[in-house]
Each structure stands twice: as C-alpha cells, then as structure tokens.
C-alpha cells in the first residue's frame, strides 16, 4: 500500500520505482477516469487495491463500484460510458473470459472504455502465471489491443488508450504480462497532471444519456440494418492505425518518448527476423544484440498493436527478411500460435513470402530465458523451412 508521502506528485525529474500494476493505477489517476468498476483476480489485484487506496485518499476522483463479478464490471462500465463518463476496468484470464459477452457489447455499442488485462493463463489446471492466451482469444470482440514491453510503456499506453478510444469510439484493451511486468518494479517517469491534461482533454461523449431526451440505445436491429452497423465498426477499426500514430506523435512531442505500432530493431539486413510482443521483447532485444555481435544476421520486430492487425506495418517491418520466427506465448488449439497465424495471413498476398517459424513457448508462466530465445533463432537459422506449423520450445520429454 502507498503511504501519503509515497504517492507520486508527478512531474518530478526523478523516476519512481514502481510495478506494472502501479503504473496502471497512476495512468488511470492521470487520465481522470470517472468510473472504475472492477473485480479482483490475481495478478490484477494490486491495480484494484492501489486504485481503491487512491480513491479513498481523493487522489483519484472516480466512483469505484465494487461489483460482484467481472461480467458486472464490464456491464457497469458500459452503463457508465453510455451515461457519458470516462470508464475503466482491469482484469485477467478467467475474469476476461467471464466478461467475453460484454466485450462484444462494448464494441458494438461504440463505447470508449479502457480495460487493462494482465496476461495470465487459463485453467484448468489453475495457473496464475504469464500467458497471452487470455487476451488473444478475445481478438474477435472488436476491441483495439495494445501490448506493452515495459512499465513505462504501460503507464503511457493507458494515457494514449483514452485518446485513441475517444477519437474513434471503440474500446481499447491495454495488455501487460503477469508478474514479469505487473509485479516487477522498474524505473518509471510519472508525468505531471498539467502535462497530461494538455494531452488528454476531458471526455466529450457524442450521445450521452440525457434524462430529457427520450432516445433508445442498443435496441433490436433487424437484418435490414445490422450489416451497416457492423460495416461502420470495421471502418472505424481501419482508421485506428493512423489515429494511433497521430496520438503517439503528439505524445512524443509532449513527453519525449513514444511507441511504434510495429517496431523493427537490430540490424537492417536480417536473415532471420524474430517477432514478439509484450515483455518477452525485452529479453529478445538482448539475445538479438548478442547474436548480431557474433556475426549472425538477425533482427527483431516488436508488435505493439495486435488489433487491428497492422498488416501494412508488419509488411514493412519484415522487408528483406529471409525467414521470420515468431514466439507466441499463447496457443489457439487446432491452429497454433496466434501471432504466427495472423502473420501468415498478413503475408499471404505478398509475392515474396518468407517462411514463418511458429514457436510456442512459455505457456502458463514457463520462463522464456535468453537460452530459449537463442534456441528459436538458431533453429530458424539452421533450417530452410520449419518442421511443422507449431514448434514447441522447452517442452519436457
């Protein structure tokens, strides 16, 4: 718990050592969220606890509804956002799965809700550790999905998320890794309230509920009209990359740091490009640098935005790659790693299609060490084609 003296005043020149979950809480505080509705689940709990503390101390001036389930948490956010206030929730794993029905509702209702999901494995068996299957299995729900590599990025992405969501009227899911980020402390710059207010203005809803305006929201929509509503959602999604780039550009000029939707790093000429998302990217950078120093032609691609799937940006990032390796910390049973699958689809129309080596690793929090990453890259260097659609890393025999 934070002491009064510990609470960040923001804007100081010194960075604070905080966990990913604390970074979320401070991002929410700086975003002037008006309604928080959440249900605890490991490893999201310290977000909810920190926000409760901040609310109780008046540092976060939001109404905090301590609902009785995640499904209700999203329903309450939907109610609040329809009512015209900035709404927030956080969850993980089974909580996100429980919300699934309402995730569809939020995007269908075009509500700019921001949800932070801490990537955790789904049971059975019960597993509280790092795994991306929870958020990625919700990729069809019409939510924008942004993945974070570091705690700084987590805080910054919460701020950017509200800008993006409110510009395009679609909900945004900000994702961070369980324990690796959520419970690990890193140095984070917490911007001042004034600076953030200049970047993120108050929510100006288009159609807030007005007691004196008798209109109906979300009523029955027959086959005669439904298709056009869905078309509009897809069109909005197609505008997101440009909106997100614009928001990031403004963020960079104000705060001096920013994040590409897709980032290519390492050597320009890549025989092998390793694609990752989330905290795993941090480890990948180190391994790739080490291997490049040894003379290997390897580079890396970090995918921040997974929905909408940025095929254009990915295509650009993979230019010149002879082979692509993807490490998925997730799986879609019957197909394989989800990023690999999406990547293959994104590359399909290209004349020159590099083979995609789809590695699955780290499920349920199995540690992805530098050795594991090196093994994946080395395998890709040593083989012209992958030996199957799914290449399992670290599997016990």
């Amino acid at each position, binding site marked *: 718990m934070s002491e009064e003296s510990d609470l960040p005043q923001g804007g100081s020149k010194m960075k604070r050592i905080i966990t990913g979950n604390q970074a979320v809480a401070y991002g929410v505080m700086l975003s002037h969220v008006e309604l928080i509705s959440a249900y605890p689940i490991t490893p999201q709990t310290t977000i909810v606890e920190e926000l409760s503390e901040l609310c109780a101390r008046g540092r976060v001036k939001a109404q905090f509804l301590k609902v009785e389930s995640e499904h209700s948490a999203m329903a309450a956010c939907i109610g609040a956002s329809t009512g015209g206030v900035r709404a927030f929730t956080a969850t993980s794993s089974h909580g996100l799965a429980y919300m699934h029905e309402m995730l569809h509702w939020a995007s269908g209702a075009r509500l700019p809700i921001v949800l932070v999901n801490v990537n955790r494995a789904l049971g059975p068996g019960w597993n509280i550790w790092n795994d991306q299957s929870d958020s990625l299995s919700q990729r069809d729900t019409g939510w924008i999905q942004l993945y974070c590599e570091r705690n700084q990025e987590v805080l910054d992405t919460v701020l950017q998320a509200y800008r993006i969501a409110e510009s395009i009227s679609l909900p945004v899911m900000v994702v961070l890794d369980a324990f690796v980020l959520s419970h690990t402390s890193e140095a984070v710059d917490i911007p001042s309230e004034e600076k953030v207010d200049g970047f993120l203005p108050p929510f100006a809803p288009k159609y807030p*509920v007005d007691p004196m305006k008798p209109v109906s929201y979300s009523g029955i929509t027959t086959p005669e009209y439904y298709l056009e509503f869905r078309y509009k959602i897809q069109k909005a999604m197609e505008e997101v990359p440009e909106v997100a780039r614009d928001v990031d550009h403004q963020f960079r000029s104000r705060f001096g740091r920013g994040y590409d939707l897709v980032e290519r790093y390492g050597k320009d000429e890549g025989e092998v490009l390793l694609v990752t998302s989330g905290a795993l990217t941090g480890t990948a950078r180190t391994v790739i640098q080490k291997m490049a120093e040894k003379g290997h032609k390897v580079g890396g691609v970090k995918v921040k935005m997974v929905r909408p799937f940025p095929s254009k940006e990915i295509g650009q990032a993979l230019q010149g790659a002879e082979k692509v390796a993807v490490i998925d910390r997730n799986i879609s049973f019957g197909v394989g790693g989800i990023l690999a699958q999406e990547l293959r689809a994104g590359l399909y129309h290209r004349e020159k299609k590099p083979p995609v080596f789809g590695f699955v690793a780290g499920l349920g929090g199995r540690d992805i060490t530098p050795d594991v990453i090196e093994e994946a890259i080395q395998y890709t260097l040593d083989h012209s084609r992958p030996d199957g659609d799914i290449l399992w890393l670290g599997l016990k025999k």
Partner: protein
Amino acid sequence: MKKMEIPSSENLGRGHLACAGCGAAVAMRLALKALGEKTVLIIPASCWSIIPGPWPYSSLRIPVIHAGFVTGGATASGIRAALDIRGHENALVAVWAGDGGTFDIGLQSLSGAAERNEDFIYICNDNEAYMNTGTQRSSATPYLAWTTTTPAHHPKENPKKDIMAIMADHHIPYAATATISYPEDLIRKIEKAKEMKGTRFVHLLSPCPPGWRIPSEMSVKLSRLAVRSRVFPLYEIEDRKYTIQEESLKEGVPVEQYLRLQGRFSHLKSHEIERFQKMVDEQWERLLKRARC
C-alpha cells in the same frame, strides 16, 4: 375512501409489438405513469426488449438503454453513477427486467447491486417463464405448470423461488408486490418508491396469454384471481416492516378457481390441485409469520 388520481401522462406510444392481452404492456403503461418522464429505463433482455419495436423506432417516450440479459443491476449501477457525475442527480434510474433476468440469469447482478444498495427502482415483470424465447421454464414458473421445457407429463418440479424474501434479506429499503388488476396499488407503490433512495424492488405479476395458455381477454381477471387466491399476495416490506394490503387479508378463494382457467395447468389432477392449495396455504402462513416478526 378517497379515490386516487392516476397520472394522465402517457409515455407508452401506440404501435408497439405486444401480443393482444399482454399483461406486461398494461404493466408498462401503468408503471411509466408512476415513474414519470425524468426516468432512464434499463431493459435487460426480455419481452420488453422487443415490444418497443425495432430500430429506428421506439414506442417508449423516455430514455431507454437496452442491456445484456445478465446485467440489469450492473448496468443500472453504471448509469446511476454517470448521471450523478454529470449533474442529473434528480433523474430516476429504473430497471425493467423479466423473471429470467431477475430470478435466474440476472440474479447475481441484481444481488450485487442490492448489497451495495445502489440507487434505482428495479421492477421485475414476472410472467412466470422465459416468454420472449417461447415459454421455457424459469425459477419463477409455478409448481406443476406446463412450459415447453416442463411438458405436461413432466411439469415444473419445484415451487417458485421466493424472490421477495431473497430481496428483503439484502436489507434494501423497499420491496413490494404488485399486479395489473390493482392499478392504483401498483402506481401508489411505485410513487412511494420514487420518494426513497437505495435499491427499491417491485415484483410485478403480468399474465401472459400465449405462455399461460389463456384467452387474451383473461389477463386482468387472472391477475385478480392470483391475488384473491393468495397465490400472489399484495404486500410491502419497508425497512423490514411488512404491510399486507387489505385485499390480500380478505379470505382467499380456492386456488382451483385460478388454476382451472389456465391451459398451462389443465393437466393437473385433483390431488395435485389439493397439493397446490396446501402449498399456497403454507406459503401464506409463512408470510404472516414473517410479517409478525
């Protein structure tokens, strides 16, 4: 006795899609008179999700938010918070849910909201089955009733859940039963609830011609017989204090008179009607006991 003034405002427009004789249509019309224009109504999935008519039309002349089946209590909590934050503190938030969205799939959300004593009036429009999807049983379906999932050779196995007792035990400030055949009582109760804060619950019985297998002109009569036979007594619970309405304190008519008029009970044999009567009597005694505590 002084006659009560029924508000003349009409906030239910013509051209809605309710069946002929729909109890819920009468109920909504009356409820809207009592709720007034400054009401934001949340409708979780139920017959009333369809009755107002399809986009872009609505026959409801107040703001309406259609919500997921499960979510009456939670959506209302969110709307209430937003309205307060935006300066609409004196707008009323009301929920209109069916028995499915209250007794079954919506119970968790309602219970959570009631435990937090969220500020809204929750009206359960009870037609005693999942009528919107074609008359499947709910936990509000009466003992031995036919529904499509409790056919006549294997009718509803268990008695109706006592939703009033469940809600009262959440320590909410107000809970009341009401039905369409006693319109002044219904309006009085909603107007009374309007003056209070916190979670206020109205259990409203609405006969359903296709679901109860009754002719469409029988809705009001059966609503009255439900009360007169003590199957559905009229009472209020205000801060744990019970008030049973005079109409229900009169001697009850035999439940057979109520059951025999409904196709959904036409398979009942006399010993089953006797069992039903016994259950009604026991339930009545239990209510009196609770009222005395």
